């Protein structure tokens, strides 16, 4: 047990900085212990005034876990439009909340975004916190962290989900850091375990060669970023929910980082994530010009052309076509893999496709193991046949 002696305190804040768990803070120049104190004693070592003493050993009790309730989704929006990952997160949160018998809340920050509340509710939120202020648009780490941390501190959610986007991956570690809690990056699977009630967070590691299931057993909230394109959104047109306007005020520290300008990247005509049919090529194509044959086949289906990492690295085709761990995650109705051996890193991005067709000379290639239909042979002869036989039908 840690005991504070406020009379001796000189309000130097060294203990606050020394505490890994956020277990001590200063209120009106008086130190107070929070419920996060673990009794580890790190603050005693740094206190020069002798205002902190220890009686007995560390309690080992970290958090009052039962205080934390509900599942939160930190929504992502740009210029008042939601990023698709937000609906995916809400879909998953809804499912988890039904298992855990709890509620789903969404938090959204930005300027002129009041209309988003209803959209968030329709996608599964029971409650929406809206912080609407000019200084919150566009996203910047420090003000977003401060506003959201204030809400977490007050309402104590049990689980917080963010998209594994540049924004989510910038913000989530800062929030986890504030609450000295666990964060699992880039999850592709989330379940509530029947035995321990914990969030089981599954993610690829080692370039997708290994999957790991991670838990945060003794700290709250349990936090995860989730890979875009993996979870399924849900839509409930007639849902009702509660909207809470969050009062926010700008602070001087919010402007530590100033955005000088933003240039939108040229909009690509490639939207693999939305394609119903994808025809992908790999090293087995032999040379870059063979992608033209794939384009022809894709056109028959009104589909798009994808690619493996190997051929993108070799410069045969632009990165925006890349499917896999370091490219895009897709789940089209039909995925046709031509001359792709099926490295784990590629499979990670396409194995959820409804129907996988592989065209490969090697019947032993890993892609043949997961394909619904594996055609053994030369793509140069098979693809023209496919185009020929499909055309009259269409």
């Amino acid at each position, binding site marked *: 047990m840690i005991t504070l002696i406020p009379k001796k305190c000189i309000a130097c804040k060294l203990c606050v900085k020394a505490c*890994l768990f956020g277990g001590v803070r200063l209120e009106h120049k008086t130190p107070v212990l929070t419920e996060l104190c673990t009794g580890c004693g790190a603050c005693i070592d740094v206190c020069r005034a002798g205002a902190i003493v220890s009686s007995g050993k560390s309690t080992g009790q970290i958090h009052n876990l039962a205080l934390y309730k509900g599942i939160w989704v930190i929504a992502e929006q740009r210029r008042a439009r939601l990023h698709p990952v937000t609906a995916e997160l809400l879909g998953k949160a809804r499912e988890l909340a039904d298992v855990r018998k709890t509620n789903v809340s969404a938090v959204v920050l930005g300027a002129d975004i009041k209309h988003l509340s209803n959209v968030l509710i329709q996608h599964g939120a029971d409650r929406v916190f809206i912080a609407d202020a000019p200084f919150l648009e566009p996203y910047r780490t420090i003000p977003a962290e401060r506003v959201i941390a204030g809400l977490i501190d007050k309402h104590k959610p049990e689980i917080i989900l963010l998209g594994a986007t*540049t924004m989510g991956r910038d913000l989530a570690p800062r929030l986890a850091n504030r609450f000295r809690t*666990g964060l699992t*990056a*880039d999850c592709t699977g989330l379940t509530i375990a029947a035995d321990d009630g914990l969030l089981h967070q599954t993610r690829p590691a080692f370039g997708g060669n*290994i*999957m*790991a299931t*991670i838990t945060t057993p003794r700290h709250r909230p349990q936090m995860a970023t989730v890979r875009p394109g993996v979870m399924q959104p849900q839509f409930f047109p007639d849902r009702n929910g509660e909207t809470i306007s969050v009062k926010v005020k700008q602070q001087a520290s919010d402007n530590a980082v*100033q955005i000088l300008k933003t240039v939108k990247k040229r909009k690509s005509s490639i939207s693999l994530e939305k394609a119903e049919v994808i025809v992908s090529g790999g090293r087995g194509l032999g040379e870059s010009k063979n992608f033209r044959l794939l384009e022809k086949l894709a056109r028959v289906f009104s589909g798009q052309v994808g690619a493996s990492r190997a051929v993108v690295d070799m410069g045969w085709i632009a990165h925006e076509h890349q499917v896999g761990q370091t490219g895009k995650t897709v789940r089209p109705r039909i995925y046709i893999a031509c001359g792709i051996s099926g490295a784990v890193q590629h499979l990670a991005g396409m194995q959820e496709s409804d129907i996988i067709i592989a065209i490969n000379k090697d019947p032993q290639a890993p892609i043949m193991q997961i394909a619904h239909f594996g055609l053994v042979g030369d793509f140069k002869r098979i693809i023209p046949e496919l185009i020929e036989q499909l055309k009259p039908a269409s």
Partner: protein
Amino acid sequence: MKGLRIIVTVKQVPDTADVKIDPKTNSLMREGIPSILNPEDKNAVEAALCLKQQHGGTIIAITMGPPQAEEVLGEVLAMGADQGVLLTDRAFAGSDTLITAFTLSRAIMKLGKYDLILCGRQAIDGDTAQVGPQLAGFLELPQVTYAEHISIEKGNAVVRRGLEDSTEWVRVKLPTLVTVTAAVNAPRYPMLYNVEAACDGSRIIIWGAQELKVPETMLGLNASPTGVKKIFEPERKKKGQIITGDPKDMTGILIDKLQELNML
């Protein structure tokens, strides 16, 4: 400004493509897998070297890991960094990203004043991209992630960030922490005369829990909020149908099947 004091965080990682699970023990088989300097950390070192060329100053590389992690400090010194710090102690083992960032933050506080901390965006063994922002959190610094270009002007860093659908230019007052992606530069090769200098040993400091003055209850596996419940190889769907024969026949069979499934 008279020279920049730049700290670069680096990590030794296994070359991931070959990592497998031992089916008997259900643990990672790391044996015989070469260790490398994490690629984006190499970009961070190169970015530091470029800034030092323009503005003068000192580059300190810091890593946490087992004793053999000293190898990556040798490589970084050979690229041109001035000083290496190795954090190694059994008490550090099993740290998750939060505790890794915490431990690094204590070492950096001990190193004294700095202008800039550079980190690779993420390491290829975990791909979490969490340690940089968490380190900034512990040091109470503003952060700029996903940097593709960095320049220093009048005590500010001006950074170009590569986001999904846009490019953003930001200005931040030093000191700050920046994480870089592979797009920031093409790292140089270690130089022979630097290798010789790197080998004299005096340029690498080794610190453990005692030097950092952190109690063991705040370190390593026990202090880490996250734990690995299990590891497994990615699920493979069961084998489908292999079709062989003449291209025309194969195509015919495939189209029949797709029609049966209502996919056309």
